[in-house]
């Protein structure tokens, strides 16, 4: 028996041959990482974008994460500063009617480049690059995500190497679209010349490392993972940028990114931190960083369906052929609005990142019409009175209002998102208090916001009664955004369910205002029209503004310079960022 006893170590010694060989093979199969500079670099800026960029070419993907990462490298002619004012960037000045930059008939705009501008490879930036960028985006088959920026541009002239004139096919009251903002920067002709049309999609080297004029140059880019930049040696402002290396790391979740800046100090800056208010509060107590907020036009809203989503209607479901049996009555919509406590919603879901608002266009300030202070207050008795007046009463004593045998029951859908599901539950409770029953649904964002015409659950098909989502407009002018509520923009089978008029509201008076806005160039007159149109939509109760949502970012205490910009990239002034001495 004694002989049969063996020890562990004996077995280990013999089986080692097999496992050792396996381990060795695997170790050899692993490619060695490329050797980069030493890690402990003193002036490396560490950015955390938990939603990592997938491409650095904003013309191929309009997603904010891509546009923002590209803004370290690529620059436009002009940008909007945090106050909503245009500032010249690669241009010498902003063209206006007064300085002759905009033709008197409004059909052309002339930009002049700064003197001595060079790309990071030291070649000069010329008007040909601007003209090429337009051709690149408009080429057939390119699938350019920013084509609307060049909408109406019929021709671009380059009278000399520093001057470009954009000609429009019709007078443009607001010609600051093309080459304005991080979505439409200038590309280098020499680099992208072979990427026209369908080839734009396959030029991966160019799309991953565009040559730009910005403060940084791409050194390594792994889509959806990490991007590394070094300072642009040819950058135009001496002494800038303040860092010689930037690492933009993606992955993980918003909470992890916030923790890295606010608690552990592993990162210097983290963008897009949409987190529950209590989480942000507790993290800030650690004291290694600070929160930054900026409020642009992003508005979380409820939208009522003014057409009948009854499945029995078949192809005419949710079309203007059948008005909604309950919600086409404005009293019911007003009652539903009065039952909401918007202050409570902001505290519940957004905290420092949200504000109470009654305006459809909450920013820039000149477009927000003055509202009484109590416009967003909850008023349950008045809501009940309005429903009584509209003929909805609880006749069978089940706590649920009804009329002509039809109970007051609504479907309420939104995308899957923890804050939105919290909102759904509290709104359901408030509406129950006024005798309205709600059936909740949450749909995956990829489907809800998808544009597959075959899918019944998109927000544009609106196959239910109430929806909640957020949207905003690009830039600082809401002209096109408001035009989305014209009658012609109602989604329908004829338009493949495309169109921004989700509520299916149609009012000729509104369309007339929109037409006049499209012809008005004077800023004060535009603001007046925008306020009128915005008030028009709010007073119709086709939609309810819930929360004016801001952007939230965190910056380490030792980092100077970040100034969050609601109109563009959080990195818009990254050249000026530096470590506190």
């Amino acid at each position: 028996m004694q002989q049969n006893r063996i020890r562990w170590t004996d077995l280990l010694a013999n089986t080692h041959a097999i496992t050792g060989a396996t381990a060795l093979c695997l170790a050899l199969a692993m490619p060695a990482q490329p050797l980069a500079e030493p890690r402990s670099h003193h002036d490396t800026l560490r950015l955390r974008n938990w939603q990592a960029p997938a491409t650095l070419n904003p013309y191929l993907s309009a997603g904010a994460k891509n546009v923002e990462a590209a803004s370290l490298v690529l620059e436009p002619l002009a940008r909007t500063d945090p106050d909503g004012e245009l500032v010249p960037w690669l241009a010498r000045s902003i063209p206006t009617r007064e300085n002759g930059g905009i033709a008197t008939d409004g059909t052309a705009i002339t930009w002049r480049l700064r003197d001595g501008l060079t790309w990071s490879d030291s070649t000069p930036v010329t008007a040909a690059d601007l003209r090429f960028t337009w051709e690149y985006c408009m080429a057939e088959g390119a699938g350019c995500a920013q084509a609307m920026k060049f909408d109406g541009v019929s021709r671009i002239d380059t009278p000399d190497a520093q001057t470009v004139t954009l000609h429009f096919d019709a007078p443009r009251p607001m010609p600051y679209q093309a080459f304005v903002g991080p979505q439409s920067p200038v590309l280098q002709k020499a680099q992208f010349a072979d990427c026209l049309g369908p080839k734009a999609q396959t030029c991966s080297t160019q799309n991953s490392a565009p040559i730009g004029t910005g403060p940084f140059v791409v050194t390594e880019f792994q889509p959806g993972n990490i991007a590394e930049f070094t300072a642009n040696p040819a950058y135009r402002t001496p002494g800038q940028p303040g860092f010689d290396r930037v690492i933009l790391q993606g992955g993980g979740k918003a909470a992890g990114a916030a923790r890295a800046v606010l608690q552990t100090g592993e990162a210097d800056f983290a963008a897009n931190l949409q987190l529950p208010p209590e989480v942000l509060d507790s993290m800030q107590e650690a004291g290694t960083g600070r929160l930054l907020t900026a409020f642009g036009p992003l508005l979380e809203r409820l939208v009522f369906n003014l057409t009948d989503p009854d499945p029995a209607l078949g192809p005419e479901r949710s079309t203007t052929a059948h008005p909604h049996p309950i919600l086409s009555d404005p009293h019911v919509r007003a009652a539903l609005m009065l039952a909401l406590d918007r202050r409570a919603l902001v505290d519940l879901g957004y905290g420092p990142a949200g504000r109470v608002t009654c305006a459809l266009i909450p920013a820039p300030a000149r477009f927000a019409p003055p509202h009484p202070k109590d416009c967003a207050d909850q008023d349950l008795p008045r809501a009940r009175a309005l429903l009584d007046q509209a003929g909805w009463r609880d006749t069978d004593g089940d706590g649920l209002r009804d009329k002509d045998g039809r109970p007051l029951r609504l479907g309420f859908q939104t995308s899957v998102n923890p804050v939105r599901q919290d909102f759904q539950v509290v709104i359901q409770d408030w509406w129950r208090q006024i005798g309205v029953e709600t059936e909740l649904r949450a749909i995956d964002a990829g489907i809800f916001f998808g544009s597959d015409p075959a899918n019944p659950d998109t927000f544009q098909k609106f196959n239910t009664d109430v929806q909640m989502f957020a949207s905003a407009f690009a830039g600082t002018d809401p002209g096109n955004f408001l035009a989305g509520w014209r009658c012609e923009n109602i989604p329908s089978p004829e338009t493949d369910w495309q169109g921004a008029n989700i509520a299916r509201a149609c009012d000729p008076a509104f369309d007339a205002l929109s037409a006049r806005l499209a012809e008005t160039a004077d800023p004060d007159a535009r603001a007046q029209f925008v306020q009128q149109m915005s008030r028009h939509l709010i007073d119709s109760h086709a939609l309810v503004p819930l929360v004016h949502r801001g952007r939230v970012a965190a910056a380490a205490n030792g980092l100077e310079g970040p100034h969050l910009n609601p109109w563009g990239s959080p990195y818009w002034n990254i050249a000026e960022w530096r470590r506190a001495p």
Partner: protein
Amino acid sequence: MAPRPLIRLARRGLSLGLSLLAIALAIFGLLSLAPGDPLARMPLTLPPEVRAAMREAMGLDAPWPTRLALWLRQALIVEPLVLCDTLFGTSWAEDAPRLISWHSRTPVMGLIADRLPQTLRLMGLSYALGLACALPLGLWQAHRHRSAADHATTALTMTAYALPPFVVALLLIWVFSITLGWLPSGYDNSLRITDAASLGTEIRQLILPVAVLALQITAQLTRHLRASAIEVLDTDHIRTARAKGLGPRALLTGHVLRHAMIPVVTIVALGLPQIVGGAIITEQIFAINGIGHLLISSIHAGDLPVVQTITLLVAVLVVLANLLADATYRWLDPRLTG
């Protein structure tokens, strides 16, 4: 008439090719039918005509037979040629259309190559460690069959096998990262191994995820090895070997292990594709940017080319691993044929 082994090889190759084709068709069909839109996460301000142009540029508007034919050509012909070009400096693929990710507009294979080292390191180390622990443990348990130590070890391996990785991972993070503060709770993807210090950091940040996966693998392999070794210990040729006076060490490693390995080989072969496919849950918990992480984020983004390619790659590896397992069986036990 061709020699018999050649015919067998040809038949085998044909059936492999057909099953791969069937798998490719199934992957394409299922993923094309699934709901989702690669443009759903674009800003709502994007006008419909711009969306339509972007879909067209992705080739989404083409009828499905065209898309299928293009994908098959890209995945089965162009990408292998490109691989050949990069390895041997040939230029066969030249201007052929490569498989491009819709999300990042870069070649899918480049994305996979970026992520593969992390996954290979994680899964390879886990399997190596799992095997290194399971082989001696399983044999020792079989040897001490029905002893108290055997029962105790069985209870332990059963528990380890039953605990899902997300529970073990959070438990280990709680103990070693939060309470004791010895090891990092997440993986730093930007780490470059340049010297001993950074290698140390890399090892430290790999300990927890490897431990989670190795525990699972050890438990599974130990249980199978123990069961089959007990069976082998009861056979005639072992009795003969014992009668010849062979010591237990020589007996177990020289005679028992070889026969008892057959079920272990099956399990390792089935797990082999995972070494490339990654561990989705573990990679997610420790924020490791491996293939599993790429797969999940591509599914969320509706990036079909990446999802299809990773799935197909894993399917190819499953087929190849089965082939390898068959060959290994024959080497382990020459009596097996057919």
